[in-house]
């Protein structure tokens, strides 16, 4: 069932349920992401945010539910149709995930080499254009192993945007980066949205980054959506679990003394 690829919602998730073995990871997730917005998906570890992102990228099969990207339900597409969609989406993985045997330039142009008939000179110019956008000019002949963490992420972004996709997914873009590099990356993400009209979905646990770049934030907890709203709405939410997440509070339960002793002795 295909919808309008140019509609208001670029991503529509309906009743998404997924399991890993017997464990239910996502519990009836419903989410709609508007064209041109930056949606940040946040949650503690184990909240299912990375799983949700992987489902949006069609890397995992859901137990049930539908995920519409640009009008097409990716849970219903066959392999060929999925590969055709790839031109319209770009993904920046957590560690960059550049192929270690190719240079930065070759990595960036890989999707072009595999899927288009573009001339090598044109592809090289395109790669350098994208490297300029991410502030990595001149790095095209280096190998990924020669780049620092921040540079790797920028190179990965350059690869993700090489086909001028409408939709960009970023998995933990600021993870492991120092604050200066991290905010430079945030600026880059904002620039991409403004200049290239991209819809960007970011999964992150860095609150500062999230508040800086998000148009809307989705908060996940234990596989279910707690809330979806603007930065202000989320910050002022009166939901206790959300406030705990924002204030990085951990819930410590007081155990029953008998139970506690039993646990220490290994009797459960």
């Amino acid at each position, binding site marked *: 069932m295909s919808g309008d690829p140019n509609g208001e919602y670029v991503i529509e998730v309906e009743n998404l349920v997924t399991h890993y073995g017997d464990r239910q990871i996502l519990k009836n997730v419903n989410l709609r992401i508007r064209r041109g917005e930056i949606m940040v998906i946040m949650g503690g570890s184990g909240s299912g945010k990375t799983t949700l992102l992987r489902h949006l990228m069609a890397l995992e099969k859901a137990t049930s539910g539908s995920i519409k990207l640009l009008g097409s339900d990716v849970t219903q597409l066959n392999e060929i149709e999925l590969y055709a969609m790839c*031109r319209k989406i770009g993904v920046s993985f957590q560690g960059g995930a550049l192929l270690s045997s190719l240079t930065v330039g070759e990595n960036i142009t890989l999707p*072009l080499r595999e*899927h*288009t*008939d*573009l*001339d090598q*000179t*044109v*592809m090289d*110019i*395109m790669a350098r*254009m*994208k490297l*300029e*956008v991410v502030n990595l000019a001149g790095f095209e002949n280096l190998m990924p192993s020669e780049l620092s963490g921040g540079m790797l992420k920028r190179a990965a972004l350059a690869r993700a945007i*090489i*086909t*001028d996709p409408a939709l960009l997914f970023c998995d933990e873009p600021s993870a492991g980066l120092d604050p200066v590099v991290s905010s430079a990356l945030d600026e880059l993400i904002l620039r991409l949205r403004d*200049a*290239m009209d991209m819809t960007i979905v970011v999964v992150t646990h860095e609150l500062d980054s999230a508040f800086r770049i998000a148009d809307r934030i989705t908060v996940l907890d234990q596989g279910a959506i707690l809330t979806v709203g603007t930065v202000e709405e989320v910050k002022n939410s009166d939901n206790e679990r959300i406030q705990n997440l924002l204030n990085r509070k951990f819930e410590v339960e007081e155990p029953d003394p008998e139970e506690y002793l039993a646990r220490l002795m290994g009797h459960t």
Partner: protein
Amino acid sequence: MEHAVREEQGKLVVSFQGEVDLEHSPKAREVLLGAVKKKQDVLVDLSEVSYIDSSGVASLVEAFQSSKKAGSSFGLVSVNPAALRVLELARLDRVFTIHSTLAEGLGGGS
């Protein structure tokens, strides 16, 4: 994507209609390089281009560079706002010679 090449006042005017994207830009490149090879001044009319992406822009860059080597001039004409934004993001709005109208492009000497 449609294209047309005509001669006006000693210059070659290359015009494109439609989308210059990953699928169509190889053809656009062929047309552009063919025009530059003739060693006349080239004007590229983008007024009827509904969409141009990085591959289209890169083809323009390549043709521009070729024309520099050949010693002839290369300019863009009637660039609509969407195309202009693509050029701006790539910081090429100051690299290319951009004329707002065809008349202006034809009027100015090389």
